Structure formats: C-alpha cells, structure tokens
C-alpha cells in the first residue's frame, strides 16, 4: 500500500520538474487536446448517425476515420473574410481569446499518477496549484469574452444577438457550476485537483443494517446532487444542445460566429470542443475518481500505477463526450426564457441549499457522532419516500387542447403541411426483418 501511496502526487510534487520534462508535458497536452478534439468531432458525428439510423461519415480514411482531419485541413484553405463593417482588431482577437483559455484550463487536470519519463519521476499533470479548480473557473470566465467580442466585432445583427445570448447564458450557468463544486471542496478539504483525486481513493466505512462495508469514494455517489447540477451547468456553459441557444441555427444562422471563416472559425470550433473535453475531464476529476480505475478493474493491484491510469482517465472523458452527444441527439432546444428560469430558479437555489445540507451533515457526523451512512439512511430514505409520494399523488394537470384543434384547415396557396393524422409507414429495414423472421419461423415449423 505504501508503494501505491507514493504513486499519487501531492502539491509538493509539482514545480520541481526539469525544463525538458515541462516541454514534453506542454507538447503532450497540446497533442492530447488536438487528438481528442479530432476524435470528439468524428465520434459525435458517428454516434449521432447511429442514433438517427444512419452510418455517419464513411468516406475519408478507413471507415471515415480521417473525416475531421480533412475538415480541419479544408478550413485552412478557405478565404479569410474580414467583413467591411467589422471592428478589425477585436474581430481578429476574439477567436484567440476564445481558444487560449480553453486549453489553459487543461493545465491543472490530472491525467495520471507519478510515472517515470526517461528516468525522471514526475506526476502526469502539467502543474497543480493550491487553487487548482479555480484556474478552470477563471478560464471559463475568460472564455466568455471571446464569444461576446466575436459577436460585437462582427458588426452584424445575428452575431450580436447570439453573443449577447451566449454571454447571459454562460454567466448564469457559471454560477451554478461554481456552487456545485463547493460541496466537493467541503469533502476533499482542498482545491487542488490532485488532492481531490486522492480524496476519492476510498470511501468512508458505512454501516447499514448491521453490515460494515467500504462506501464508494467517488463524489458522484457521495454528492449526487452536486454531480447532477454540475453536469447540467456545464452543458449550458459549453453552449451545447439542448442549451445551444447562442447558435440556434433556425433563428440566428450561426450565432456569434456567423461572419467568421477559415482559421478563425476553426479556432471557435476548436475552443468549443476543447471546452467539452475540459469539462468532461473536470467531471472525471471532481466526481468520477479522476485517473483511478473504476470498481471492477480496481481489484487488479496494478490498475492504479504506471501508465494504465491514462487509459481509465481517457475512458471517463470519452464517457463525458458520449453524454454530450447523446443529449444533442435526443433533446430539442429549449426556449430562452425556460432556460434562464431553469438556471436561476432551480439550479442556483438547489445548489445553495445542497451546500448547507452537506455542511450540516458533516457537522452532525463529526460533532454528534452520527455516521454519514446513518444520516443518509434515517434522513435520506424518508425524504426520498416523501418526494416520491408527492410526485405520485400530485394531481395531473388537465391536458391542454391539442394542437390539432387549434389549427384551422389548410387553405389553398398556403404552405404544404402534412396532415396531422399522418400515419408513418414502418421503416423498410423493419419490414424486411419481420419478413425474414416470419420466414424463419415458418421454415422451422415446416421442418
């Protein structure tokens, strides 16, 4: 065990690297981020394709694997347009301001334990600071500027509206994100990312119904409300569907980047995907045990040493990216007033309340000798039952008159709309499959 403990870095392990290790790490971070971005774009298109019964990109490279690389290269050959009405210096600067904080935030994300690179023992993390997580928050605060300025400097209506929406959205959800993290600090007692990963190594002992067992260490399990608020808030923070109001295509063309082309557009695109990767990595770090192996794998002793943790970490990041994609493929875009109402009237109050609840539980368990598991058992379960009973017994709202009743019959010369009682025929593959299955069954009977 002492061997394993030496593997997990503490704050004192940082800032002692020789210069060439730092160079390797900086280059490594850029390589990882660019590779993950290229992967995320392709992954998203493939997954959305599967979810929509399509194949997705399959032309460039083996099974379409080089599609995002080809797209990126294509952007480099496009004409760089500077609109006549643009505010030139700021129009030029905005994509840089959007992209730089995006990758800067990744500098405090722990990717693995202490490893040996060419004989030098060093933690797999560029650096760690006593205020580690705050660096990520500061970077996301700076990222707002890139978007506001892009919209403003374009000198065009759609980008301006998109950027204003985006700024109001990002600042609203940044509050919820910041508040959701407080409970993690409360449990971990530190803001350094490596310290938070270490604090999730093992959970406290829980005794329930006379049985003693090790509780889970992951804060996603210990602090489920924080985790849920964080997940919702970062979707709003990264401007992703269903909160992609800043670039709502059907309303604002492209939102803040309507006027951008070529490399500048690519930088916005890069920033969006790097932000997705960063918030997924932060979710893994704060809530999902960081680079430590998940449960069934963690039985194996070597799982948390050497270079293996990089694999678990990237797996968790890809899980985060998958959830982003899943949301995009599933949920329709929200209306802006719904979105703001949800942020300010649900997420922020719940986050504040949750902080006080967690703090109270900590005090109770420490000073009055209650076990955290006992509290969860004797308070949590009745509350859960009560909530479920209320939800179940709550009277259903009378259904609104359907859309069909409200729509007058289509007149000649109006837009061609499908009839509201349209029956969609079953999809051909389904018919074919049923026919094949029926044939097989029939054949079986004959035989």
């Amino acid at each position, binding site marked *: 065990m002492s061997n394993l403990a030496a593997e997990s870095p503490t*704050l004192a392990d940082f*800032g002692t690297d020789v210069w060439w290790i730092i160079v390797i790490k900086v280059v490594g971070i850029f390589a990882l981020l660019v590779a993950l971005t290229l992967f995320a774009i392709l992954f998203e298109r493939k997954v959305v394709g599967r979810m929509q019964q399509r194949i997705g990109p399959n032309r460039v490279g083996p099974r379409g694997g080089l599609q995002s690389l080809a797209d990126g290269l294509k952007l480099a050959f496009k004409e760089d347009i500077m609109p006549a009405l643009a*505010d030139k*210096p*700021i129009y030029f600067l905005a994509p840089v301001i959007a992209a730089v904080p995006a990758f800067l935030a990744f500098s405090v994300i722990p990717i693995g334990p202490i490893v040996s690179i060419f004989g030098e023992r060093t933690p797999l993390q560029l650096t760690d*600071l*006593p*205020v580690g997580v*705050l*660096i990520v*928050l*500061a970077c996301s*605060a*700076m990222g*707002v*500027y890139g978007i*506001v*300025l892009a919209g*403003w400097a374009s000198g065009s209506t759609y980008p301006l509206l998109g950027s*204003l929406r985006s*700024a109001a959205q990002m*600042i609203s959800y*940044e509050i919820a994100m910041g508040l959701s993290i407080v409970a993690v600090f409360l449990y971990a007692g530190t*803001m350094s990312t490596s310290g938070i990963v270490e604090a999730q190594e093992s959970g406290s002992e829980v005794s329930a119904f006379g049985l003693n067992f090790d509780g889970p260490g992951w804060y996603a399990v210990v602090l489920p409300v924080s985790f849920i608020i964080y997940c919702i808030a970062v979707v709003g923070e990264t401007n992703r569907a269903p909160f992609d109001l800043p670039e709502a295509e*059907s309303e604002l063309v492209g939102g803040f980047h309507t006027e951008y082309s070529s490399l500048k557009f690519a930088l916005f695109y890069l920033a969006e995907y790097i932000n997705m990767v960063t918030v997924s990595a932060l979710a893994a770090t704060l809530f999902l045990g960081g680079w430590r192996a998940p449960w069934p794998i963690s039985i194996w002793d070597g799982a948390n040493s050497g270079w293996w943790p990089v694999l678990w970490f990237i797996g968790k990041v890809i899980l985060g990216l998958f959830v982003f994609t899943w949301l995009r493929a599933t949920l329709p875009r929200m*209306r*802006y*007033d*719904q979105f703001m109402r949800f942020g300010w009237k649900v997420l922020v109050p719940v986050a504040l309340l949750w902080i006080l609840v967690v703090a109270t539980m900590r005090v109770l368990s420490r000073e009055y000798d209650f076990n955290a598991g006992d509290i969860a058992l004797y308070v949590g379960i009745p509350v859960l039952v009560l909530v479920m009973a209320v939800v179940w017994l709550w009277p259903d709202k009378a259904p609104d008159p359907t*859309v069909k009743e*409200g*729509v*007058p019959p289509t007149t000649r*010369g*109006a*837009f*061609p*709309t499908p009839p509201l009682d349209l029956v969609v025929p079953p999809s051909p593959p389904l018919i074919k499959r049923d026919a094949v299955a029926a044939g097989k069954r029939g054949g079986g009977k004959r035989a």
Partner: protein
Amino acid sequence: MSHAAVLAADVVSSGEAGAFWVLGPIALAGAIGMVLSRNAIHSALWLVLTMLSLGGFYFVQQAPFLGAVQIIVYTGAIMILFLFVLMLVGRDYSDSIVETLRGQRVAAILLGIGFAGLVGGLIADATSGVESVGLAESNADGGNVAAIARLLFTDYLLAFELTSALLITAAVGAMILAHIEHESGSRPGQKEQSIARIKGPRPQTLTGPGVFARGNSVAAPALLPDGSVAEDSRATGMKMRQPPAIASGSIDDLDDVTVDSGANRDGVPT
C-alpha cells in the same frame, strides 16, 4: 515554496523578478491604452488586460487565491458587466475630442505625469530598503487559501458579514433600479408568444424573399427574389411545370397575378 526558507527574510526570486518585468509593462500599457482609446469597448478591453496582469502579480507574489479571485470576479464578472453597460450605449458613441477649455489637454497631461511622479516617488522612497518578512509563515500552515479562510472566519468575521451584506444590498438596489416591473399577464412572454404562434394560422416562420416553394419536385424550378425563374435550376430532359408568379410577395394572391417570367434577374429578356 521550499521549507528551508520559511523563517528567513523573503527573497525576490529571479522568476518573480522576471515575471514582474513582463507583467508590469503589460499592466501599464493596458492602463494607458484604456485612457487613450476613443472607442468605449476598446477602453474596457485595455482595462481587462490590466486586471489580468494584476491577477498575474498576485500569483507570482504567492497569493494564488487572490490571483484567482482577481481573475474570476474582476476580469470575469465586473468587466462583463462593464461590457454590457457599454453595449447599452451602442457602438457609435465615442468621445468628443473638442476641447472646451483651451490648453486643457496639455495641462491635464502635465499634471497627470506630475501626480504620478509624486505618488510613485513617495511610494518608492517609503518602500525601498524595507525587507518583507513573514510571507512564508503566513502561507505555511495548509497554504494560502486555508490561511485566508481561517482569518476570514475567525478574526474578521464581523467585517466579512457586514461587508457582504452591504455589497449585496447595494448591488440589488442598482439592479432593481434598472429593472422595469411588468404586471403578470400584461405583456406576452416567450411562452405565450410561442403558444400563440403554434395555435395561429401560421405555425412556421415567415417566408424569406424569393424562396417560396410550391412543390419539391424536380419539375418545379427555383425562383429568384423577383419571382422570375432561376434558369440554372431548370432540369434537363423533362417538361417543366410553369412556376407560380409572385408579384407583391403575398401568398394569397399568388394565383391571380401573372408576371413576366421570361425576364431574368436584371430584367433582361431571355
């Protein structure tokens, strides 16, 4: 942050000195740029640069929490508020450069430089030769963040709570002043508008000019904004349907009006 130096007087490391000489000119350039910019948004951005450099200063002087707060609160929150205020004003607003008092600018520059020299000289005189001690001790036990928190929630608790109450009250006051309260139901919100649109005669968006389509068959050619047929869109090898004519852009009188569909965009007969 090595432990050998805990009790010694603080020495400015070469890294700190280097960071100072990089960040100092940037902060100064931001301040001067802010004053000299004609455009209000440019001014605000120069100020952001200064604020960021100040955050950097806090970091190199081993006050990481203060540095992070400087960036999150000042550069993030307060400057975004500034930007929104400036956007309320609009872009065309710039400073007038007409001097109302003769020689005002020269006098202001001279007095400003003089004042800066005076204050700078006084501070330099008062602080040169002073040795800073105690930084390592105050940051020793649990680090900078814990040290600040411990002081904040013990010795300075009353000041902290009172200041926060004052600040919140002031901010909310300013916010409420800017807010126009509407009676509920007096103005349709986004929800009401959305429902009204779905229930109305036209749930879809209004047609853009020149994109009205009567069918999606290949036999139906595309129309140009003036209602004439886009010749490029005619399919070969089939009899094209005669396109509907659009004169005033209204869909109701679509079939009653005939226009010369034999003219292209520039009015040249084809």
